[in-house]
């Protein structure tokens, strides 16, 4: 094995270990944190830095060891960057909705209740639908 091979192997391993650590931390957070809004932070770490590290490692591995440009990983990160925040956002919205309708009593964690929206408007989840919005045009 050549010197550069060893170097690249070290870099790749480091990236994978870094990614795996973040994934572990994210998962640990999921278990450990008491309230939903706080738990939400865990997976975001796992999907961004955690998966990102592993994906970059994978790209480098194919670049150095197999000698091919691997762009799949970029595509995967692109999809993740689009979908992961949306999922987190939707979960948060559902949580707010639950709080509003008192469908569920959440434990108040160290961070307290979610902050109130500014005076001008309310959380979108709490708003009445605007009559000319997309929402009003469908279903009802």
């Amino acid at each position, binding site marked *: 094995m050549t010197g550069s091979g060893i170097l690249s192997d070290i870099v790749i391993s480091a990236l994978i270990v870094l990614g795996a650590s973040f994934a572990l931390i994210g998962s640990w957070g999921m278990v450990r944190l008491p309230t939903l809004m706080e738990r939400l932070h865990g997976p975001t770490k796992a999907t961004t830095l955690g998966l990102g590290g592993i994906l970059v490692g994978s790209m480098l591995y194919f670049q150095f060891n197999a000698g091919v440009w691997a762009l799949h990983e970029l595509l995967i990160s692109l999809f993740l960057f*689009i979908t992961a925040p949306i999922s987190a956002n939707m979960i948060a919205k559902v949580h707010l909705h639950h709080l509003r309708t008192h469908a569920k009593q959440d434990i108040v964690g160290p961070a307290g209740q979610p902050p109130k929206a500014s005076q001008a408007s309310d959380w979108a989840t709490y708003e*009445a639908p605007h009559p000319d919005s997309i929402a009003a045009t469908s279903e009802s």
Partner: protein
Amino acid sequence: MAVPLMLYTLVILPFLAALLIAIGSSHGRALHSGLAAAGSALGLALILGIAGRVIGGDVLAVSVPWVPVIGLDFSLMIDPLGLMFAGLILGIGLLVVIFGHFYLASDEATGRFFASLMLFQGAMLGIVLSGNVLLLLVFWELTSLSSFLLIGFWRDKAEARQGARMALAVTGGGGLVLIAGMVLLGTIAGSFDLMTILERGDIIQASPLYPVMLVLILIGCFTKSAQFPFHFWLPHAMAAPTPVSAYLHSATMVKAGVFLLARLWPVLSGTELYTVIVTSVGLITMLMGAWVALFKHDLKGILAYSTISQLGLLVMLLGFSLEMAAVAAVLHILNHAAFKAALFMSAGIVDHETGTRDIRRLGGLAKVMPITAIVATLAAAAMAGLPPLGGFISKEMMLDETLHVGLFGISWLVPVVATIAATLSVAYSLRLAVHLFFGKPREAEPHARAHDPGAGMWASPAFLVILAVLLGLVPMALAGPLVSSVAGAVIGNAAPPLGLALWHGVNVALGMSLAAVAIGALLLWRHAGLLRGYEAMRHLDAKALFDRTLGAADREVRKLIVATHSPSLQRMLFASFAVIVALVAEGALTGGGTLTGARAGQPASAVAIIAWGLLIAATIAVVRAQRQRFLVLIYISVIGLIITLAFVHFSAPDLALTQISVEVVTILLLLLALNLLPKTPPLLSSQPRRYRDALLAIGGGLGIGGAAWAMLTRNPNDPISSFHLANSYSGGGGTNVVNVTLVDFRAFDTLGEIIVLGIAGLAIFALLDTTSRGAAGARLRSWQEDMPHSPERHPLMFVMATRILLPLVLAVGIYIFLRGHNQPGGGFIAALVVAIAFLLQYLASGFDWTDARRRVGEHLLIASGVLVAMATGLGSLVFGANFLTSSFGYFQVPLVGEVELATALLFDIGVFAVVFGAVMQALAQLSQISQRAARAHAAQVEAQQQGSEP
């Protein structure tokens, strides 16, 4: 024209005309009748073109195998008998089309009428030209079906619908009996080829099965030809438009039974059994029909019963098993076709011009409708058998033949009864003419507006009547060679020498004929008194009897269905699963062998053990949480994920991709469905039943598990997969064996599966669309959301993200689709991936928004998918390869490089469309239910608000 082509053209022409008329049904009456007339005329020209050859003794035949396994060949043959009937069908068909053009108002559904008429013509031609008895049966049933359509043409009339149903039940039922008879006949003869059967009369009559076969075939013939006791459908079939009655119920369809008797005459006739049954049935029918006809008041009713009587005469003549009687039958078929069609058309004209068909309200029409009167009177005279018309000759021949036949050992029985029937037929024929056209008008109103119709309407009956007259005046010149040749074909060898003439000198038959005319005239003179006597008698109402029988059968069948096929889904599922489990258990226990095979196991990795543990935990969780539907769904998705991982672990990327995408789609759809269901299902089953169901479930699970264990611990025995692996690239042009198997090796299976999937999609539509009606619909409409909904129905981020994702996912879908032939992917997975992207649009932006942007409907997708796949398969036939053979090639495309194109890709497009369509169908139906409920709810709220305002 070459003979084969000519015969095929002859049979296909009417069907082609029917198709063209149906396509052009939005056009006017002239196009419909024009096409029908052109088809008939062309066929008639073809028949006339070969008439000389066929009458001269040539039998033209052509045959191609259709279903050789059961002996069904598409073989056509034309001999003198077929020629005569084909001529009648086409000739009278042409006249009826002309008549019908003027008879039907232009705002009626003339397209449907003439298309059905041509359909019938084709079916009838098929019967008389079939050279294979199984093929004959096919056409036989077709005549029943097309006559159903024609009798029920005025479908808004109850009597038309009931008449059509009765005709179908009787003639269709008779057709089923005939099938049994024909199969027996073919089995005895050792061939279903008509010519072969006709040569094997001795073998057939010597067979012990002959009596059974004979009775079955006779029932088929008697039902079709309205013979006693199956005659009752014919008068009710008179609810059809008059052109139909003139065509089907006088000249052609009812003659199908007579035709078949004549066709099989050499094989069936001659035995004691045959003579007794056929002669007596014919005799009874003849007498009974003539008697009833004398007292009917509806013109078409009179004609219907007279037709029954005349058909009885024909059947009786064929039943004599005498050669000369067969000759008389042939002559009378011609005569009857001419005068009866003319009479029906005349009745139609009278109905058309006066507005009534009741003979008691009409009379003295000769003054106002002279042409119709001349035509109808001459036709009635022919029916009465008065000289010098054609009817006289055939009737005299018939009476002459009766003298040679003794029935039940009584030599005078047949001649006396036949003379009585002839007397009655003179009476009803004369009554028809006299009461209709002569004397004083009985009612002023119908008489006042009556006048002769245009030439277009009376031309057809007038032409037929001229024929009827000529058949009497110059019988030998007009019909001599034809009758002689046809009779020869019926008998099976040369016909006896023929001397058709009006005057044969003084003989017994002439005496009988004279007596019939004299007494018939007397009966007419005394008709009023007879009528009172007839009406004082009790009569059996065949229709009520038929309805009662049918109703009773209906009730019994319903009882049986409820008893065996209980409408409880749970019970049916339990029964079917119990049977399966029992069968498998029985097979496993009695089959012998060991559960565990010889194959060595593999060491389990730690990952596999963890996944396995998760799988079991999720399964147990599903059972425990079974009453919380949402939780169950989550656990089920865990199971699906682990199965996907298992596929990855065992190097089955195609299966893994399919599994994960199916999993996502089903979970999404189930979530939507869950929205409509109670969040916790009500407890419906009692405790013992739950134990019972659990027992069955455990049994089923053990069975499946055992089977899997047995399979996995054995080495595969000469697996077909090795063939697939070896031939995938060389034969199918793809390195992805799974995909090549789907679209090439087992493409026929895949075709079947996508058709099933398409049907499932349509079934979702059928089931959920009809739930909007009835009790379930009312429940669904009153459904109210049982969870508080967020006012923010379409979160902006979610909406925008799905819209950005759509083109990306589409690209992924196309990529997966295209690479499918060589790498994991293919039409099925691509369709699911694309479907997920669309499902997300519906979820995020709402059904209305997304649906408004959709151009292609689900039904179209499903249908076009199946059609594309079929067309791809059929395409290979064009190149001389077998169905669904795939072909591939490599092409250089600029910039892209070498590209493989395979016909399997086209097939895969079909798969794609069906899968995508089925998923979208499910989605559309689910959302429509909640939309309907929302709309109903909104309407309710609005109504309440309006109610409270004032």
